[in-house]
């Protein structure tokens, strides 16, 4: 069991990142930290994809004059580049919304926000 965890440490990291991300999103009252949690969660998924592309003893997928041999799969890397772009845009929109919420209510704390909005 320990051996399995030690040789598959990437997947352990994926599970941890996903767990930490979800926990931050649910448990943290601060809106900015929720967004950071969202980023951590996505990073876990990115790491999962990158790990799946790894080939034991594989070369980088660069073709130089025909002979290549074993090489890592380039496709997941490309997919994750796209996903990272999406993640950055999401973070930008989220932060813009948080700025607006702060300007409106003067707080970033979810619990305080709920109380303020209940009085509206």
């Amino acid at each position: 069991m320990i051996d399995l965890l030690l040789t598959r440490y990437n997947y352990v990291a994926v599970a941890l990142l996903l767990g930490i991300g979800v926990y931050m999103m649910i448990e943290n009252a601060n809106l900015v930290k929720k967004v950071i949690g969202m980023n951590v969660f996505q990073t876990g998924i990115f790491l999962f994809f990158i790990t799946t592309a790894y080939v034991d003893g594989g070369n980088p997928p660069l073709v130089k004059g025909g002979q290549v041999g074993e090489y890592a799969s380039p496709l997941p890397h490309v997919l994750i580049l796209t996903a990272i772009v999406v993640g950055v845009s999401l973070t930008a929109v989220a932060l813009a919304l948080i700025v607006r919420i702060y300007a409106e209510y003067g707080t970033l704390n979810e619990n305080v926000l709920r109380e303020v909005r209940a009085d509206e």
Partner: protein
Amino acid sequence: MSDVPALLVAVPIVAGVVALVVGQWRDRAAWAVALVASAAQVVLAGSLATTVFRDGTVSYEVGNFAAPYGIELVVDGLSASVAVLVAVVALGVLVYSRVSGPHTPAFHAEYLLLVAGLSGMSITGDVFNLYVFLEITGLAAYALVASGDGGRAAVGALKYLIVGTVGASLYLLGVGYAFVATGTLNMADMSAKLAEVGYADPLVLAAFGLIVTGLAVKSAIFPLHTWQPEAYAGAPDSVSAFISALVSTVSAYAIARLVVSVFTVDFLRANPVAQDLVVALAGVSVVAGSALAVTQSEIKRMLAYSSVSQFGLVVAAFALATESAFVGGTIHLLGHAVMKGGLFMAAGAVAAATGARTVSEYRGLASRRPVLAGSFAVLALAMVGVPPAVGFVGKWYIALAAVEAEAWSIAVVILVSTLLTLAYFARVIERMYFASAPAATAADEATEPTPDAAVVDGGDGPLSGRGSPRSDGGADGPFALTPGVVALVVVVTVTSVALGFVATEYAQLLEQTLPPLLSP
């Protein structure tokens, strides 16, 4: 002609940029650009649908990269129908937004971006491409929800963003598992390879669970619906009409596409537990959504919870995966979009005319606003499933399928759902028709020198300013109601009834494209 599928995505994206640039010069010009693009979209989608229903499936290789490696756009009867729905509803809501606003160039750019994302989702044949379009749709929808005034819209949008991102990320993770199992991202190719890998493989099962959960978040199935009421209620009226009609609809279409075309019916037969779980979740969604809708006092929140319930019905139909269930699910999916869009438009128009946004404020509406109240009532009854409206046809097929498949619990849920739908709409109809008009409230007295004016003049005056005290920083401020908006609401109402008459023909048309889907 052969480039039509690509144009369906490219036209709104390019037009979105143009609208943003032109809008800097004059606000109304952005609307004109959006109108031209939406009209072009209707023509493109319509011609594509004609081709598909005449000649069969159309596929298009983006950038001429051969199919399993490059991205493929595949249009069959189902995706063509959804693409047409997106285009037509987009055009309708755009006309509505001419009066109701928002009028900023940013709104029109986001709007066209949303149309592009939704069209892309409906015609893509690649699971990762679907994720990208899912996120484009999401980003545009978050921004559109946030275009409402005040903090409420921003809070609703942020909640939508966080929950929606988790949903899309779960979908991406599911795609990752499926990719590890099959090594391909093309839907048709993946479907074949999944069969080779074996449907009992843990990777395949995990992929199915994650993909369905992720998309269920996006289509707001109970208990993953929590983002929806806040987002719909906080958004401007035109945006809630648009989002309620399309965003969840296309996500539910994506569930159907992945369950039926990628995992296939054989997967469901091989894993009855997976099928039962999805059907059970959907059944719970029907009941819980209705129950929550009954407890709402605000009209837009009630309509939002109603969607939770109706999408439960649609997903249950898709998960049953028999032919008539599938036809019923599709008809209800498309019909629901028209009806729910119409209901939100009517609610927005009522708010503009009278300021009424809660169930109790709808008291006596029929005498003050007979046309709007009538439209709302007809749309509500259509949603309940009174024949001959389209809501009836969809439910009829689904109920029939449930009985045929001997899924008795689901048959009961569908029949009960009709009663439950009636439960929350009957409250409104009763208030509108059988309760006397309210005495003017304190807020009205502040703005109106003679409190009885509303009753005396029959409520036909624009009653300017009445809505503003009650919009409590929520949706956009009331707009001046024009006859055009009322006419549009009436047109949507008539459409939702008329669709019921053509639904049977449509079902036959759809069945031609179904056999390869359901019995590969």
